């Protein structure tokens, strides 16, 4: 099974080529550029024939694993099916230059405006910007709104963002990047926000609280109304991390829970593919009191309601967070998803995501430990529990799952659960897929008891074994050297 795979650079042979350009119908003009501004050597890039290039990447793809290959219950990442029609339709806009005069790009502007309106309705917010390129980028953008809100009120003391210890790592990192201090609060024993800790944490320095609901434990925050009250009464704003929005579409809306600002991961909830780590898209929604601070440009209609235009004249805006208007191609795919499903279909997706998660959790009970055992939302968190006594840990179980044909769950997160495995099946999976996965988890638990060595050796079915990560970090090799 094990096999190394040549780099494209190792396949290079002098003189081979895959490109062709038309004959140049203009006279050479390189003499117009002084020698000292020109390159002094050819680029050291591969020289390769087209067929070898095609085989290189085709075979590389076979050393990878996507949702189309199999079950991918990666918690907090919502690895749902990526509909093919959306892949086909997004490129319809590939040739539209972003700086066309607005009269020439009305279709793109209309689509974005329609998307903003639908996201407002789904989330219960008053306005959306599609500019942020990913979830963490949305967090940063949203936090900039909170900062601008306080600054415009002349309140420069609100420098602290409160983040529960169960939060995604991006939350504190985004808060720091937005110029805030981060105050972490401990979770209550039931996994929710500890209200006393929150009351103790808020004060005149509180800019806001970042919260994921359902939480990273996959549990709905039952005290959300009280939490909102505490934060608002202290003068802070409430930020909703939309990573787990797939649990609640059409059921409850962040805007109605009391959140002032939020982001969505279109590449999670709205089915756009993750691309192996991007491109994503992280639209940010706000309540009316934050609209003046939204990034420019805003898409607006002219007075007769006939034409869309881009309005850059927003003096209180935080500015721009990205070139142009966002990851438009990703936005189109999410738009297609929402238009395909409609209100009923979105709710059906959330209901089945939650049903599938509870179905899996229920079947794993008694085999793996469930630290917060109550009805979960779209994901559940389990641990090896007593299996640890056989000398295996969560990572070993993850690697054993690879050999059984599954992408492992998110592991070692949330941080507040020791040896966590966070399982998010999504609505895309059939009952028999879930049953087979549960059987695999049971099989691993059995093997842990009888043959722990085999679990330690996993994975054995992959092209390579477990990487030596310590050496990778200590003596980093980040590019190929001839």
């Amino acid at each position, binding site marked *: 099974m094990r096999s*190394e795979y040549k780099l494209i650079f190792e396949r290079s042979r002098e003189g081979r080529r895959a*490109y062709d350009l038309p004959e*140049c119908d203009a006279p050479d003009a390189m003499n117009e*550029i002084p020698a*000292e501004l020109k390159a002094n050597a050819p680029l050291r*890039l*591969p020289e390769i024939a087209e067929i070898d*290039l095609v085989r*290189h990447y085709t075979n*590389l793809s*076979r050393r*990878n*694993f*996507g949702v*189309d290959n199999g079950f991918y219950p990666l918690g907090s990442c919502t690895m749902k099916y990526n509909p093919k029609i959306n892949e086909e339709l997004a*490129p319809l806009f590939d*040739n539209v*230059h972003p*700086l066309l005069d607005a009269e020439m790009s009305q*279709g793109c502007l209309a689509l974005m405006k329609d998307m903003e309106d639908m996201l407002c309705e*789904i989330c219960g917010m008053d306005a959306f910007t599609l500019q942020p390129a990913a979830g*963490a*980028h949305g967090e940063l953008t949203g936090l*900039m709104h909170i*900062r601008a809100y306080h600054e415009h009120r002349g309140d420069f003391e609100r420098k602290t963002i409160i983040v529960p210890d169960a939060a995604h*790592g991006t939350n504190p*990192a*985004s808060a*720091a*990047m937005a110029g805030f201090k981060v105050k972490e609060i401990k979770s209550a024993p039931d996994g929710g926000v500890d209200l006393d800790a929150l009351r103790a944490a808020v004060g005149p320095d509180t800019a806001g609280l970042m919260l994921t609901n359902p939480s990273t434990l996959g549990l709905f925050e*039952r005290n959300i*109304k009280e939490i909102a009250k505490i934060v608002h009464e202290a003068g802070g704003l409430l930020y909703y991390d939309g990573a787990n929005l797939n649990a*609640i579409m059409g059921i409850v809306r962040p805007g*109605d*829970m009391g959140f002032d600002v939020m982001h969505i991961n279109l590449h999670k909830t709205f089915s756009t*593919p*993750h*691309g*192996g780590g*991007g491109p994503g898209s992280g639209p940010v929604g706000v309540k009316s009191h934050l609209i003046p601070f939204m990034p420019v440009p805003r898409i607006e209609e002219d007075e007769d309601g006939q034409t869309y235009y881009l309005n850059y004249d927003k003096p209180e805006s935080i*500015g721009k*967070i990205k*070139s*142009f208007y966002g990851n438009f*191609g*990703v936005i189109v795919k999410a738009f297609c998803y929402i*238009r395909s499903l*409609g*209100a009923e279909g979105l709710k059906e997706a959330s209901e089945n995501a939650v049903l599938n998660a509870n179905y899996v959790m*229920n079947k794993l009970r008694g085999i793996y430990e469930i630290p917060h055992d109550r*009805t979960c939302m779209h994901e559940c968190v389990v641990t090896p529990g007593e299996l640890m006594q056989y000398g295996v840990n969560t990572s070993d179980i993850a690697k054993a799952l690879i050999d059984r044909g599954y992408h492992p769950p998110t592991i070692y997160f949330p941080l507040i659960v020791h040896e966590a495995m966070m399982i998010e099946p999504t609505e895309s999976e059939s009952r028999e897929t879930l049953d087979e996965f549960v059987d695999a988890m049971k099989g691993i638990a059995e093997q842990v008891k009888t043959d722990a060595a085999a679990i330690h050796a996993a994975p054995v079915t*992959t*092209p390579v074994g*477990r*990487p*030596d990560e310590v050496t990778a*970090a200590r003596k*980093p090799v*980040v*590019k190929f050297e001839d």
Partner: protein
Amino acid sequence: MKSYVPNTQKERQEMLAEIGMKSMDDLFADIPADLKLSRPLDLPDALSESELRDLLNAYTIMNEEGGPLFRGAGAYRHYIPSVIPQLVARSEFYTAYTPYQAEMSQGMLQSLFEYQTMICRLTGLDAANASVYDGATAAAEAMLMLRDNKRKKKILYSAGLNPDVITVMKTYGHCAEMELVEIPLDSNGVTDVDAIAANMDGAAGYIGATPNYFGNIEPMSKAAEAVHAKGGLLVSYVNPITLGVLARPADYGADIAIGDGQPLGLPLAFGGPYVGFMACTQKLMRNLPGRIAGQTTDAEGNRVFVLTLQAREQHIRREKASSNICSNQMLCAIMTSMYCSVMGPNGMREVGEQNVAKAHMFAKKLCEIKGIKLRWPNTPFFNEFVIDVENAKDINDALANYSITGGLVLKDGGMLWCVTEMNCADEFDFVCDIIQDTVDNIGGEE
């Protein structure tokens, strides 16, 4: 209604029964009743696949595009070899997540390692990350790298950076309480090097662009001298498709090279997704933001690729991370890497030469029209240049009647034109005739 849920109503009921519930509503008992939405979402009706196709076509018809394009200004139309969209459509790549599980993600990890190598070879620098969102956010991240490395909040930047890049840097910079100092352009349309030298005291470094927003190729080695003389770092924002023919960042002493990879095989797509690249010297590697793929071995000694130097990143360091970035633009990064492999050293040189040749031919023709002048006739350019003309808006309106997109009208009334290998000599004649007519007609009316 389209549904991507495989389980039938009957199966759902059975599954509910198995977990001791009667209805879907029981699953949501934790949600306070008064918060729950008591009505269906008010969204447009669900569409079948064929209806969806019609709807999207209706949006595309509202756009007017497809004719000759002479506009760049940060987004460039170059030829995209067909192998790129075909290969990137392998769903093992595009439906995967970030490669946390290295053993089953070698395809993506090796592709990223190759991408990083391509970026290092384009820029001549030592290390690259696996991408950030776009060129503008690369500039903002580079600004923070300078701050972290030098522990100084003052940074100089060129007025020749793309205005979007400047705005994004300011947006990030406001939060980081940076002191950003703009260095003006001189009479040749390139950054005033004396002004860089005069402002470097207390600064962590300087961020400049070549070619700059106006198309002018900047003498970056002079900027490097001015910056390094004061112990600062030089960041060069480059258009990567120039690097087959123009000097590379390492050649003139850049410490960090950044830019937008879009010209290398990515479609215009109304502004995104594109990809920001970042490369730097060995010394700065641990200040890089975001994912980095590295090489190591498994227990049998096989070469293995893995995400590395993660101690910089948000999921480990939380508020002390070098950046908050998590998802980036990996698929787009791989597309640029494929482009570099298709083109190779000779293709990159040829495409650069064609851009230079065609842009100069067109510029010459334009300037034969009375009343049109190059703004900076003595300054070398790659594929973009600025002309001064009285009636830029009328010219674009006239061209639009023939489905031609003319140069971008600048705030000061000038026009920024872009010519790539996708434009041809026949277009130049046609466009110049229309412009000549427009200029004549307006002249006649006066």
